[in-house]
């Protein structure tokens, strides 16, 4: 995996750019840990101040310093994305490897379920959960729900790889050597699917964070929990653009675009890496 990253950084400019962008955002979000202000408090600063030396990103109509507000918001969003990604990875890797390796009826059943999940439009379902849970739909519950919806594509992908691996020499050896299925999957196959897992991880974060933004802007999440989405929600509530508090919309949007672009580049270049032909084309020979 490490060597993979080295190659990518050496030969793949997109990956490098992605790394830089994501790095920037992560660093920015990390600042929130040393934030001098509690992002949940309002009217601590003079409202509607444009960006200045004192308030780098200005202040919003709720009297919050946007720099620290956004820093916290992005931390929360990233954490959210990570949570969903990790949880759904667990599902998709288990399902993918199991289906691919065991094959037979296990595979058929799993993939059948998989197809059901694939063909369900997720946004209405999420709205539905909100409709029922309302205020009980806190961030973690949401993450959990999304994790349960966000695994099928990647499970399918991992399965196809696992299938390939199944017929490789080392698998047979491992099996003859009397390795348990679990062992085979974890110790022999996992390393091979790691790059895919990484790529899908990024994609999954893109997906879940995008949905979070949407739900939040519609007011369907915990609004007192600063995230990319809730920041935009409040700026809409205060009609920020029309009253000329443009920085309250423009800055978050720019940051959001940076985040998503970065993640996407990472995922994309990793995908390319996984496909050997395009990799070779890049590295020559």
């Amino acid at each position, binding site marked *: 995996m490490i060597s993979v990253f080295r190659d990518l950084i050496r030969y793949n400019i997109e990956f490098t750019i992605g790394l830089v962008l994501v790095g920037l955002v992560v660093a920015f979000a990390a600042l929130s840990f040393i934030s001098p202000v509690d992002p949940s408090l309002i009217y601590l600063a003079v*409202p509607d101040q444009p960006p200045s030396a004192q308030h780098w990103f200005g202040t919003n109509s709720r009297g919050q310093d946007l720099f620290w507000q956004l820093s916290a918001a992005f931390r929360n969003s990233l954490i959210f994305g990570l949570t969903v990604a990790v949880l759904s990875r667990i599902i998709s890797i288990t399902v993918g490897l199991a289906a691919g390796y065991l094959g037979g009826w296990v595979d058929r059943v799993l993939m059948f379920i998989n197809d059901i999940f694939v063909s369900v439009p997720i946004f209405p379902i999420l709205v539905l959960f909100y409709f029922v849970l309302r*205020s009980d739909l806190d961030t973690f519950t949401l993450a959990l729900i999304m994790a349960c919806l966000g695994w099928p594509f990647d499970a399918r992908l991992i399965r196809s790889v696992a299938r390939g691996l199944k017929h490789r020499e080392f698998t047979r050896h491992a099996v003859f050597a009397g390795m348990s299925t679990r062992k085979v999957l974890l110790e022999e196959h996992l390393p091979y699917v790691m790059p895919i897992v990484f790529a899908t991880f990024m994609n999954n974060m893109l997906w879940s964070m995008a949905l979070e933004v949407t739900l939040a802007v519609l*007011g369907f999440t915990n609004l007192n929990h600063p995230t990319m989405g809730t920041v935009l929600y409040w700026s809409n509530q205060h*009609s920020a653009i029309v009253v000329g508090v443009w920085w309250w919309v423009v800055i978050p949007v720019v940051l959001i675009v940076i985040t998503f672009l970065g993640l996407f580049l990472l995922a994309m270049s990793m995908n390319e890496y996984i496909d050997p032909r395009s990799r070779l084309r890049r590295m020559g020979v």
Partner: protein
Amino acid sequence: MHRRSFLLAGTAAGVLTLAAKGLAFAQEAEGSAPDLAEFPRKETLIIHNPEGVIRNPGWFNNWVVGAGNALSNGLHQLTTDTFWLIDPDAGLEGASENAIYNSLADGLWEYNEDFTEMTVKLKPGIYWSDGVEFTADDVVFTVEKHKATPGLSQNGAYNAQVETVEAVDPYTVHFTLKGPNSRFHTLFSVRWTGAWIMPKHVFENVEDILSFPNDPPVSLGPYTLHSYDPNGTWYIWQRRDDWERTALGMIGEPKPRFIIYRNNISPDNRLIEMRNGNLDMVHDLSPEATFSIIQQDPQIQGWFPGFPYAHPDPTLVMAIFNLQKPLFEDKRVRWALALMLDARAMSMASYRGAATLSAISVPPTGTHPRDFHGPLQDFLINYELDTGSRTIKPYDPDVGLQIAEMVRGQFPDAPTDETAVRNAFGYGWWKQDLQAAEELLTSAGFSKQGNQWMMPDGQPFRFSVMVPTDGVVNRLGAIIAQTWAQNGIGAQVEAASDTWDRQRVGNYDVNISWAVETWGGHPDLSFFLDSYHSEYIKPLGESQPDRNWMRWEDPRLDELIEKIRASDFNDPVGIEYGHEFVKLHLEEMPNIPIMAYNVFSVQSNRYWTGWPNIDRPYANPVTNWSNGRYIFTQITPVEGA
């Protein structure tokens, strides 16, 4: 290749035909939409209806409960009518008395001495838009049809209150009630939806009223339906040629020949559309939006000529304690929480200073300052509170003036004249007095560990503050919770989209909402007070009828309510009872009254002028629930516009 594109084309065709079918559907939905050229601006008034998309635009039968969301698309303002209307503001000089208009009725209600019968005289010469005369038979039909049909809006009301109703003669209706009820007439006194009278000659032939769309509606008002959007985003109404033959017409000529109600306009778009001259009346904007549009366009006005612009609605925003939770059973605790709050912070946070504060449980709006806030000012100034270790005078009569000073920097047009300030910013509120609060809590057996207050049972004093997901009330709740939290109370703000349901079943600790709503123009408090009677109180989990959300129970309160019930609506003693109520409330502090629900409704003088405002408060400018219909008789087109 070609096979694929063929297949895709196939699907495309399929879908498009589907879409076409849908449009055909929309078409069938009778959309003879207007060509705006037909509507010269100086004859056309364009009003913003705060609703979203109206999902059953072709539904005009507003007697069915929950019938569609077309509640303020002009239908009830322009085509329906009932006996009286009580104005939330002062009402028109001459046309109304005590803000009471006789609309279909020719005079006030006449009760017998024990309030078990009510007689109503009707104005002769009122005609439905299809030329049929309006008579007592329509009233009798309406009441009886409602009693017989569950699912009609007043079915419950009539069944609960009306024994019999008969038409003494074409212009006289006589009600026999099931019990004494001195406020029965209020059922026919409009707030938003009143007991509208049905056109007998139309509805008597209808098989199932609950599924009868009533399109186009036969109108009892001066306007009839011209056309509407099959997708439910606008309605156009046209003045009747015989508008004089309607109750409103008898009060004055409605000037606009056409009135367009437009809904589903996002807050941002409202501002843009009004600036572009495509809206004359906007129901509400965010405070920020109001400030910026008034800056950008001198023709646009609010209720006050300068800051704070917004119109104080006759609803009183308050922190409602859930009195059935042990957390708040001790009134000293409730008072302590009140004294911890900082009126200035609340005003700034919620309304950027544009709030009209009220320390008492009567909204500082309409004619109430005249009847309550003014007269009670001295009482409040001298009001004494025993903190357990000393007595203090918690009231600060000048907080309004202080806020006016604070905002004058940003808004030079804020008033300076004292009475003007009091009317705009309120007559005063409680001083933030943390020390007194601590004393009260301590005397209530609370103790402070570090910066956290502990209840007598040793548990930390924690609760959630429920607020809606947006708007000024949300902002207010946020700052309230924050202030309490900063003073050692474990208060957590909780933005919920279903606050209304949850306050109904008592699923909250503290709820920022309003448990007080009044006529606004009339001193009678029965509007909300009658429902405070203990006979209606339900246990937590069960649905509490409006509006005693805190489930406040007190024998003195019941006594007072019964006295009010026994007195006539217009009996001046009502004001005294009102004062009694205010004092009782202060003693108990079952909820913390904070400010009027100020609505930033603005009007443009670009094409029409003569809007109501603080100097000429003849009507409430909000476009949905108020009696805005009288505005149409007062405005005039702007020359040369």
